[in-house]
């Protein structure tokens, strides 16, 4: 038998549990909100070992210092420190170490307390490979993001188009024939 006191006690316990959960959630959200996430912009995402690259940062915490580093499989290559201005922006040229191994990296901005506040994927290429990349006619990053589809010259083959059309007609005809046979079976 449950008494009125039992119910009151359970209600108190539930209230305490909800309160504790709320506090924990608040603490987690507070920790998550300590840093403002910034944006790193590069003129190109193909970096060349030994060359410099222009980096712009936006929407960082105002007047805060950060370390810019390349994070790769082999570890972290520090590229230098930077300080955002009173609007949370910075711009500077960064020198990619000549001894950086070619491969995929993340360029990260690390706040003074060790938290990562921005990142962007990049590739480090040896000088010769970068020249080949440019020669292939790849455009650099656009200035503004867009939701408009790219106007690409689609590869077309009349033979393929007509083969697909013939396949569609054959599938339609076969499908209709099978369904009509089912209808005939029913009668």
């Amino acid at each position: 038998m449950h008494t009125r006191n039992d119910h009151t006690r359970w209600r108190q316990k539930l209230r305490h549990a909800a309160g504790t959960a709320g506090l924990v959630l608040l603490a987690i959200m507070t920790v998550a909100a300590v840093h403002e996430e910034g944006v790193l912009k590069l003129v190109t995402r193909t970096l060349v070992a030994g060359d410099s690259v222009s980096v712009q940062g936006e929407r960082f915490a105002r007047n805060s210092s950060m370390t810019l580093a390349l994070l790769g499989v082999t570890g972290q290559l520090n590229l230098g420190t930077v300080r955002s201005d009173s609007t949370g922006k910075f711009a500077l040229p960064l020198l990619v170490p000549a001894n950086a191994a070619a491969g995929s990296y993340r360029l990260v901005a690390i706040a003074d307390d060790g938290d990562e506040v921005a990142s962007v994927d990049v590739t480090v290429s040896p000088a010769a490979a970068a020249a080949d990349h440019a020669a292939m006619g790849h455009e650099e990053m656009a200035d503004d993001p867009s939701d408009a589809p790219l106007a690409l010259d689609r590869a077309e083959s009349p033979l393929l188009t007509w083969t697909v059309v013939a396949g569609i007609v054959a599938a339609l005809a076969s499908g209709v024939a099978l369904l009509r046979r089912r209808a005939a079976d029913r009668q």
Partner: protein
Amino acid sequence: MIASRLALSALDYSIPARANRLDFMLGALTLAALTALSVSGIVLTQYYNPAPLGAHDSIRYIITELPLVTWLRDLHVWSATGAVVLVFAHLAAVFWRRGFRSPREVLWWSGVLLLALLFGLAFTGTVLRADQEAVEALAHAVAGAQLAGPAGAPFLPGFTPSSPLLTRMYGLHVSVLPLALVGILALHMWLIRHLGVSAAGEERAAFRTHLRPLSGFALLLVAAVAAVSLAWPASLLSPGMEGFEVTKPFWPFLWIYAAENLFGMAGMLIAPSVLFGFLALVPVADRTDGARARVTRYAGVVLFGLMIIAIVYAALAPGQSHLNMPM
């Protein structure tokens, strides 16, 4: 001779004659769309580069240089749309005829898991394009993973420093999720075979008679998807730029986008939790006829209606920033 060697007599088992109607074939037609997705996907893996900076270029190469592969990519995208539409139609049909009641509870739950896996495949597939929409979808996934705490850790960029998040999404899309899908699909089909479909009526028919109309509808589906792929090729946006929100997600995720408009980032977790929580509870809530069964049915209809309204609203409403990024 061949029939005996291939044990085709196993197809002679009886099923309710009513199961030869289209509304009982929606699950099998979803399987036909999944087959088209698998075949086209296998070809695409030969040309797609899952490295973050090579991904967009490889799709651009496919579109501009390879007519057959670019058409297969279009077919892949439209088959995904077809699979999502069919699986929801299947879900609605089974829900309406209460195909989840005893002894088919596990059959229903396996279907709910398959739906979740299909959403996972659609999401990881979107991300692989590495265009603006993909980068924003990935940013939402990372934000959701942060909200989810330790459970979301595998979806954070720093989880495995040796492999970029995009490459891990590719691994999910081409191996982990398809393997899970095949495993649960096998369970789903096993249960259908042994528990039977939930069709009313005394009249029976041989399963072989089911295959003919099913093949007919499957051929019509393939023809429709192929024609749409030819008429409206899949698009590709410009290479993704991180830190911005200018796009909306692939349409099957628009109801989640609408929830984010209403509840902020928490909407990304709330909306799927409500849907999948409800679907998981359906066999428990609606066991026999009565008030609870009526409430479950009304709740399902309202939820389904809300999803459609949310998709239309999100498609038509102006874009919103959910991650406090510039638009």
